[in-house]
Every structure is written in C-alpha cells, then in structure tokens.
C-alpha cells in the first residue's frame, strides 16, 4: 500500500514539474496558463489521492481523508473559473502573443 501511495505522489510531482517547465518556457501569456492547468489538475489530484489513501490507510483517520477530498474538490471548482477570468481579462486588456496566432476568431469578431 505504501508503494501505491508513493507512486501516486511521484506521478503527481511529474505532472507538476511538466507544468512548471511549461510556465518557464512557453512563449506567451495564454500558452503559459495552459501549462499551469497541468499543475492544478492532475498534479494536485494525484497528490490529493495519495494523501487520501495515506490518511485513510496509514493514519486510520476518515476526517483527514475527507478534508483532503474537499481540498481537491475546491481546487477543481475554483481553478477553471479563475483561469477563464484571467485569460479573458488579459485578452481584453490588450495582451497579445509576440508571434502572431494562426487563428484568432475572438480578435476577428470583437476587435473591429
């Protein structure tokens, strides 16, 4: 059981590392936010799953397990709302990628 928990946490860290690399290396704001989503979905979810199993199996504490589940649920509910608002705000504030985007339907429909 311990091995399963460790594997889950390690997998979560792999996805978090991928997201961090993406934030550092992506060329523009929106692509960076896409990479950050990687951290807040599978990164957090796998870590939380490992934590839930640890609390339930190793610590025998249902209360802690449920609290970690509530944390994961809260991240899942609040994250898309936040990234949607940040992306929309950045776009309407006039932030554009340095290299021209191949397709930009939002700019076509609202910029003129």
């Amino acid at each position, binding site marked *: 059981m311990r091995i399963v928990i460790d594997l889950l946490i390690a997998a979560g860290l792999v996805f978090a590392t*991928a997201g961090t690399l993406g934030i550092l290396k992506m060329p523009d704001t*929106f692509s960076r936010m896409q990479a950050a*989503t990687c951290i807040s979905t599978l990164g957090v979810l796998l870590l939380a799953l490992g934590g839930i199993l640890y609390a339930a199996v190793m610590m025998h504490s249902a209360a802690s397990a449920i609290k970690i589940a509530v944390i994961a649920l809260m991240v899942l509910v609040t*994250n898309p709302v936040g*990234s949607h608002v940040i992306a929309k705000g950045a776009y309407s504030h006039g932030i554009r990628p340095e290299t021209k985007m191949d397709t930009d339907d939002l700019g076509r429909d609202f910029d003129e």
Partner: protein
Amino acid sequence: MQKTKFSAVAATFLVCFVFWVLLDFSFKAEELLAGAIVSLAVALFTARFFIHEDAGWFLNPKRLFSLLRFWCVTFPIELVKANVAMARICFGGCRDIAPGIVKIPTELKSDYGLAALSNSITLTPGTITMEVTEEDGRNWLYVHWIKVRETEPEAAGEAIKGTLEKGLKEVWA
C-alpha cells in the same frame, strides 16, 4: 431582481450543510443544529444570486446517474489524455505548439450545461474557454487552443468537446 424559488433555497441549503458536515465532521446534535441554522440563513440571503433555473434536476435519478458517470468515467479519461499530451509538449521543450483562438458551436442551451461545459474545457490542459456568446439562436464558445489542428468551427468543436458535450447533454439538455 428575480423572485427566489423554493428549490433554489433548498439546493443552496443542502450544499452549505453538506460542506459544514464534511469540514466539521462531528455528529453531535448541537453542532448539526448550529450548522443547519447558519446554512439556512446563508441560503435564504444568497440563493437568488446563484440559481436562476429549476434546481430540482438532481432529484431525477437518471440525470444524476448520467452526471456521476460523466464525473467518474468520461471526464477523468479526457483529463488524463490531455495531461499526458501537455506534459509531453512541456518536456519536449515547448516547441511543438500552434496557439490560436477558435470559435466552436455548442448545442447545450441551459445555464448549467454551458457552465459545466466551459469549465470542463478550461480544466482540460490545452484548452481555455475565453468567452461565451449567443448568435443565430446557437451558443458559441471562444476557446484558446494550444495546438490548433482544425480551424473549421464544427470540426474544431468535435476535436475539443466531442465526448464532453455528449456526456453533459444527457444531464442538462
């Protein structure tokens, strides 16, 4: 200001109370009673800001089952697939990208369905919903896509939200 519906108050009360029980996690009568009173007060004051449609949908077992299947099967599969693709792009040096904003149509009509669909799209790495509009009687989503493969609205929509929309259509038309 819209009139507050009873079902909206009941649904808000239920959500508040469930969260109280989960966070407090003690089942003494006085703690439950205090939670119920606080939840009822919160629900009475805030229900009209949250729910504007019929909130009784989750009493229908078929729709509830469809929603559970969406959350437990359809969505996690899409999430893992997109995460692996994104992690591969990141570890490959972030060179394999073609970012762009595409406009896709959706057949969902209700507020619940649109909110659930656009949040699911945003939660999948590689796509972020930026705007929802209504045109010619259809709802359209503007989606930032890290690797644009299709620019035709219908084909792009199929690639971005294909299975997600099918799963959600069974719950909220």
